């Protein structure tokens, strides 16, 4: 794919001249629901964004040339997505190891740093309680489940008729369980230096940020360089997510301390 590869290599620099686009604009003659189902299935199968954009442009060109409806020409979206995925290279399915490590490190920083800030402000040590250890265990099980069965979890979520309810409900249930664990299991286990905890938290957040900065940005990209979302925004969101959340929690901790 000589010229296509050349196009791809210049796409980053042409983002400024080629505006952002939406999935519907990538294949305006196709049924939007068909396009959504096709793209979700290709993503779940690990097809790179550049290939998805190429497929959408091919579908659009075919529909314009034939005047056919998308389901008539290409059949059911999911089946076509699977057939097409099998015809070319895909990424390994599931979450890459570097994403697992950076997410875990980011969460560790998110938990440790606000605790360290609270202890430092009060001039105390960080008291590790039974609830902390239980919450840590729950979090580890949850992360393992997500990493091991990430694709299946996402597929089940997308295919569920109540996905909006589930998406809203899962974080609420998770927070409620964690609050319950912290509140009910308060027996102290060990006390640690607040500076040590702060150091570990900074190290974890730093590692998460460093790994996220090296994460390749895989946007759905049309052969003419239009992308679904801005590459720079995606990169900065990746880099800033954990540091920003951690800083926000530290700020909340300080506000609570200052006003109490």
């Amino acid at each position, binding site marked *: 794919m000589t*010229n*296509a590869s050349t196009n791809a290599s210049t796409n980053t620099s042409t983002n400024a001249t080629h505006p952002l686009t939406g999935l519907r604009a990538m294949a305006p003659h196709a049924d939007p629901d068909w396009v959504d189902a096709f793209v979700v299935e290709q993503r779940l199968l690990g097809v790179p964004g550049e290939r998805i954009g190429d*497929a959408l442009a091919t*579908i659009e060109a*075919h529909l314009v*040339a034939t005047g056919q409806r998308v389901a008539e020409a290409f059949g059911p979206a999911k089946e076509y997505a699977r057939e097409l995925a099998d015809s*070319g290279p895909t990424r390994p399915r599931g979450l890459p190891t570097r994403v697992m490590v950076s997410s875990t490190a980011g969460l560790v920083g998110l938990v440790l740093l606000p605790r360290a800030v609270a202890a430092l402000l009060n001039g105390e040590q960080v008291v590790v309680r039974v609830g902390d250890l239980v919450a840590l265990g729950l979090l580890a099980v949850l992360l393992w489940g997500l990493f091991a069965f990430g694709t299946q979890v996402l597929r089940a979520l997308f295919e569920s008729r109540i996905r909006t309810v589930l998406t809203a409900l899962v974080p609420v249930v998770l927070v409620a369980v964690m609050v319950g664990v912290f509140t009910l299991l308060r027996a102290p286990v060990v006390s640690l230096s607040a500076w040590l905890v702060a150091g570990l938290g900074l190290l974890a957040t730093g590692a998460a940020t460093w790994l996220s900065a090296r994460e390749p940005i895989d946007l759905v990209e049309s*052969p*003419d360089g239009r992308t679904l979302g801005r590459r720079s925004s995606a990169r900065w969101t990746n880099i800033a997510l954990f540091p920003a959340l951690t800083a926000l929690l530290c700020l909340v901790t300080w506000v609570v301390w200052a006003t109490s």
Partner: protein
Amino acid sequence: MATDDAWPSDWLRGVLAVAVLAVLERGATHGYAIAAALSEAGLGTVKGGTLYPLLGRLETAGHLQAEWLPGEGGPGRKVYVLTAAGRRQLADQRDRWAEFTTLTTALISGSTTGVRP
């Protein structure tokens, strides 16, 4: 020979790859033109859902290359070109297919036992 009768999909599955290579031997062209040429040759309507995954497999195998030609206000059209490896594959498959059809025709028509000499 043009026909409106659909050929059994099993038969088409076996011959479609070499037929696409044969169409591309005439010159670089885009997906819809390949489908039109196959239809014109009498193979019936080959839908996009069958054609493009096949083109993808042939591209992955190195038998053809694809490139986008610019269009007005969009990505344009994707054009497929036969590679040297594709030409070799076509030549090989063409000979073998001729032998295969001779054998099967003889077998089906009852003029042979189907055992190769």
